[in-house]
């Protein structure tokens, strides 16, 4: 594809603006200009946009709702915990006895190791399971992926209970003396990787193939799209991206099994539905809306938060099935090229 055409598209400009925004936020934070609260908010926001975009590749672009996508977030966080708390714990403990923070070289080694391990496991699971369940369509796929989430979660809990000295289902990471700025930059690297991957997939030939599968799978097959292979690729890519965000959250929260929770799948799905299916900007806007709404609801409504969130999903699905971005595209045609 022509590079200059790719760069001049509005989606690329928006993603670059977002990356630039988070870069400025991070620079301000590391110079102590803005408080740590903004840094924490920025980290959370990157995480939510990241998991939304990872899910978008299979759900929004391809039209297959994977209810168990949290399993790949869980795989990522489990691999990070495995690298830190099982493989390298003695080394980290030894180093931490002399210094108050592990060296950048060690940190980046472990980070890259976790990325590699998580990608390999996520790829194996996604391709293996994808070969079986991607033959199913619509609701059957959704239900099979719910099952996948439980199976892998219980298997991982089973494995962890054998290697963890606590005998429980959680692997705590050792204390590495990292600050929230380190976590912020870690999230930032993954954010760049995710947002440009999602954008490139959307505008490439592969992305058009996925769009044709979403609109009409039989017609796509007739015009020569290798639908099954495309679906497996999309599922694998979405899995690997989701596992990256599991790593980020494992480094930050230092616990693992929470990331298998169905609640994370719910967040991913809600973001995509609210933003609008079939668009690149949709999951981003959905993530921002979800994040703000979640903050507001938890602080003002307390226990009613889940009820309101559920009602919000019902309203969006019933009355604005094309999501917020789709609604804006329909109402304001001049915004169309910005909201691709």
């Amino acid at each position, binding site marked *: 594809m022509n590079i200059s055409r790719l760069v001049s598209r509005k989606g690329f400009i928006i993603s670059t603006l977002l990356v630039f925004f988070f870069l400025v936020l991070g620079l301000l934070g590391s110079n102590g200009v803005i408080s740590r609260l903004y840094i924490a908010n920025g980290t959370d926001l990157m995480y939510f946009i990241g998991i939304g975009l990872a899910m978008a590749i299979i759900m929004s672009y391809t*039209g297959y*709702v994977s209810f168990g996508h949290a399993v790949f977030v869980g795989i990522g966080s489990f691999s990070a915990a495995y690298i830190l708390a099982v493989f390298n714990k003695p080394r980290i403990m030894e180093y931490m006895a002399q210094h108050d923070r592990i060296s950048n070289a060690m940190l980046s080694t472990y980070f890259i190791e976790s990325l590699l391990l998580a990608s390999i496991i996520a790829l194996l699971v996604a391709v293996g*399971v994808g070969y*079986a*369940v991607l*033959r*199913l*369509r*619509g*609701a*059957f796929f*959704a*239900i*099979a992926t*719910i*099952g*996948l989430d*439980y*199976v892998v979660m*219980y*298997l991982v*809990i*089973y494995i962890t209970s054998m290697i963890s000295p606590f005998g429980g289902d959680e692997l705590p990471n050792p204390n590495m003396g990292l600050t929230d700025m380190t976590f912020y930059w870690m999230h930032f690297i993954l954010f760049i990787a995710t947002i440009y991957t999602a954008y490139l997939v959307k505008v490439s030939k592969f992305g058009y193939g996925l769009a044709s599968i979403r609109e009409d799978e039989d017609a796509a097959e007739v015009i020569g799209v290798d639908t099954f292979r495309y679906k497996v690729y999309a599922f694998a890519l979405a899995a690997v991206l989701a596992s990256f965000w599991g790593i980020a959250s494992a480094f930050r929260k230092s616990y693992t099994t929470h990331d298998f929770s*169905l609640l994370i799948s*719910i967040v991913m*799905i809600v973001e995509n*539905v609210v933003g609008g299916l079939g668009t690149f900007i949709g999951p981003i806007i959905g993530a921002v809306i979800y994040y703000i709404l979640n903050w507001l609801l938890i602080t003002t409504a*307390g*226990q*009613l*938060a*889940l*009820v*309101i*969130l*559920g*009602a*919000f*999903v*019902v309203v*969006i*699905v*019933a*009355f604005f*099935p094309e999501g917020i971005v789709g609604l804006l595209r329909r109402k304001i045609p001049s915004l169309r090229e910005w909201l691709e």
Partner: protein
Amino acid sequence: MIELTLTGDAFLRGIVIGLIYGSVLGAVASGLTIIWGVMKVVNLAHGHILVFAAMMSAFLYLTYKGAVWFTPPIAFIWMGILGLAFGAFFYYVTLHPIIGHVDTMTLKYEMSSLMATFGFGIALYGIHYFLPNIIPSYSTEPSIGFSIGGQGHTYISFLGVTIEKSKLLMAALSLVLVIVAHGIMNWTSMGLKIRAVAQDARALSLVGINPVRIKLLTTIVATAFAMSSGVLYLGYANSVTPLSETIVAPLCFVIVVLGGLGSVIGTYMGGLLLGVIYQLVLELTAQTQQFAFVVAFAVLIIALVFKPNGVFGNIEEKLSRLRR
């Protein structure tokens, strides 16, 4: 690692308890098979509705301690009646904007109804954590002895296996529920209309029947079955929390797929099969519930890949052929 305890005793216990558990599971999934299998609405709120009914009956039973009105056989009927109203509410709030018109379900409607019921389920799940703010005595973790007449548990011995009488009662009630569901779907004109609306809603409207009303009726019936089977689940498991949904709902989907969509008897057979597998794994491997759960889902994925029409897919055709 996994150690097998292959004794005849464990085997027998697995099969007997498995059959009872499977009978309850089959009844629990029958509401889902009506709404999903026949009307093609993937009701992800099924488990939440069921657990909602179970929580309500547990709460009422504990509040009016020992009152006959909330013991299983009667709570079963209460919840069924309440389910009729709740089903209408569920339909108008969630499904009517999506499927409330004369049209046969397509994949697009199927996916949006799936998302809408998903949202309804989250809301219903959230209500359990909100209710203690209004009703101080409402607990999200009631632990009860939900038995006949509120007299505590009595046991019965059968083939050397000791079973709680209340569990046997639940199995009997679940059989009643399944027969009622099968009867409604196959022996009444309403069941005929429900099956017709799934096949061709437009043709149905041409012969003077309002398909939207049939969709409403189906949702009401399915919800009533879901709510009364919530009491069965409570009676079997003896305790319930909002998180029970994460165990019941996936098992329901497994059973409906195993049984073949839209067949109540097939679903019941699927329930029996899954219950036996589940309990046998529990008894023979001495592992946790979670391990049995993994096996159940392995069964689902194998069934989905190799027999997408369900193991007991056309059992009703075979039955009617036998009758002739």
